[in-house]
């Protein structure tokens, strides 16, 4: 997830020609009150957090006096939206909205192309509208090698039943949004609502921009705007997740780490995206409680494995550790195991009591077997040990034979 905060999204929209309301970012109630004067005396305050459903959480409030701005800002700045503490607000010019529309551009894996989504009835209820009256949600796949032509965009708005001046304005907004989507390597751009205000003018009353993480290298200015505040998509990073990011960042050229902390008690370092996901489902089925998920892409990553295992072992309350991966084609498993063995040797643990179950298969397995023999009590398995065997075994040993 690489989602920009709303003020950065609105900046991009404006830069690419989608009209946006005037706004300011405030970190204190005083700043919110002084922003109000610049915004014409009436404004909407919104929590600036990487989470949706802010309105439903009570973190969006219209204000019309400096006192009200101050007190409401104070209230919202004390809130949490989802898991995110509110540290900043966006104060946005109040709009007299006559009509709300919905507009977005995303990738559609089915058509293997960009897709424009447009609904002449927008707002927070757009999913319900699309569910009840699917004909209202219009879709236009775009040939990426040709781009979105003005006539296609205006035609789509016309199909939504909009009268000519508004249809043309919507068409222009679509082309501008598509331009942003392409120029800045976006995964998804959304304007909801796209608001019609007095004089038939359109403005983006809210905006969401999701960037393509695989293209951040060529959008360095945007990459810099993705701070830690972003979290993992639904909550801020935990200290252990931050530590794991630092371990990963120390050497960006070998094996990229993906790590998520969970509330359970079995250190679950099972790599390979599909293998890890399948094993995680199996562990839950067996009654296991994972303490984390972990993946690392192939490379010479002995040092990273060493530091990652050490970090996971420090998590309080762990009852066991699983280290595994799908059968390796090329990456030598002994390199991985060398780092693991170093970490286990340094841990002050009795592996007769604290179970460590390891399964790797592929090149380097014999050498890995020899390395593991240096840490007595650690279980080593190879290709005949399935992911079900693995999950059953750790649950059995971590929770005792009775399970749980």
């Amino acid at each position, binding site marked *: *997830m690489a989602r920009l905060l709303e003020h950065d999204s609105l900046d991009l929209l404006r830069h690419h020609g989608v009209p946006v309301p005037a706004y300011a970012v405030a970190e204190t109630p005083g700043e919110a009150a002084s922003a109000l004067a610049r915004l014409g005396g009436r404004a909407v305050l919104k929590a600036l957090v990487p989470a949706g459903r802010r309105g439903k959480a009570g973190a969006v409030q219209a204000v019309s006096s400096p006192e009200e701005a101050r007190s409401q800002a104070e209230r919202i700045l004390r809130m949490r939206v989802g898991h995110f503490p509110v540290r900043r607000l966006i104060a946005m010019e109040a709009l007299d909205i006559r009509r709300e529309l919905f507009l977005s551009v995303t990738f559609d894996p089915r058509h293997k192309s960009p897709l424009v989504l447009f609904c002449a009835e927008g707002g927070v209820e757009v999913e319900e509208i699309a569910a009840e009256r699917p004909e209202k949600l219009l879709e236009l796949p775009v040939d990426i090698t040709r781009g979105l032509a003005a006539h296609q965009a205006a035609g789509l708005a016309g199909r939504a039943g909009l009268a000519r001046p508004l249809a043309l304005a919507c068409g222009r907004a679509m082309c501008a949004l598509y331009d942003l989507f392409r120029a800045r390597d976006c995964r998804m751009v959304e304007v909801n609502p796209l608001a019609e205000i007095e004089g038939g003018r359109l403005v983006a009353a809210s905006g969401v921009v999701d960037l393509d993480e695989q293209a951040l290298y060529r959008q360095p200015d945007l990459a810099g705007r993705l701070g830690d505040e972003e979290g993992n998509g639904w909550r801020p990073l935990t200290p252990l997740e931050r530590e794991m990011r630092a371990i990963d960042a120390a050497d960006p050229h070998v094996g990229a780490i993906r790590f998520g902390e969970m509330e359970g008690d079995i250190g679950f370092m099972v790599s390979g995206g599909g293998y890890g*996901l399948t094993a995680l489902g199996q562990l839950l089925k067996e009654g296991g409680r994972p303490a984390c998920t972990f993946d690392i892409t192939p490379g010479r990553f002995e040092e990273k494995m060493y530091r990652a295992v050490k970090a996971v072992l420090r998590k309080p309350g762990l009852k066991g550790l699983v280290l595994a991966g799908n059968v390796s*084609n090329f990456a030598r498993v002994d390199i991985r195991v060398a780092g693991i063995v170093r970490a286990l040797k340094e841990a002050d643990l009795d592996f007769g009591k604290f179970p460590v179950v390891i399964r790797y298969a592929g090149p380097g397995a014999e050498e890995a077997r020899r390395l593991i023999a240096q840490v007595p009590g650690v279980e080593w398995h190879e290709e005949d040990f399935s992911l*079900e065997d693995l999950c059953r075994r750790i649950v059995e040993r971590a929770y005792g034979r009775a399970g749980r």
Partner: protein
Amino acid sequence: MSILLDGETRVLVQGATGAEARRLIPTMRAYGTRVVAGVSPGKGGERVEGVPVYDTVAAARRAHGVDYSVLFTPARFTKEAALEAIEAGVPVVHILAEGVPHHDACEVVTRARAAGVFVIGPNSQGMLSPGKAKVGGTGGEVPDLMFRPGPVGVVSRSGGMGAEICLFLTRAGIGQTTYVAIGGDLIIGAAFVEMLALFEQDPETRCVVMFGEPGTGREEEAAEFIARGGFTKPLVAMIPGEFLETSPTPAAVSHTGALIERGVGAPSQKKKRLREAGAYVAESFSDIVPLVRRALGGAEGR
């Protein structure tokens, strides 16, 4: 037989002078892959592991004829390399790189479709037709551990799980016609439907194992394809991740995300649709081998 790749296929390696290609070309050749040439712009005239290197795909193609190009290029140079192969008229273009920008992948897939070129990947680990040929990292240094010739086609979104499935099939004495990793990215060339269509045409493939994942509509499209009669052989499918549907962690919310995934993407739905289309659905990994045995009608592969 096999699909897309066998011992006769004339394979070109793009990005041939890079470290990954230097490491993998010898294993591909040792397994039987007919690697006829390599391409690295500016390195024409060199040889890599005995393979002649050209500056351009067109030059390599003129000199050797090329049926299949496998791209070892880093993600950021992949679009240019793939478009070059497409413009040079290579019929199959296989992209291994992980991390190719989505806009680049989309452009490549769109241009390939217009040119009638078959694209595999990006983010595909590779492909292997047991006893004949392999491209990419699949099988690595230990292909016989995981693969043996036989009657089962295997197609997977995950390279690691595809290899793991082949390992357990092989250990059970059941061989494969071809194994292909279609790639884990959102935008890829050929997906399940395209591969099932090829396995349908292959007389030696008697059953296919498909490993899916949450998200996108690729498994649902496969179910529709079977229901339409496009694939008539037995299919064994596994799609993990059903637990995510009831997990308390809310997915990052956008209206667009919710709208585009209306009715597709959830593993439970994928499994339901595949079951309705007549596929055998594995609830856990150890179900796969017994289901394949059943699909093959008791007669195990030779």
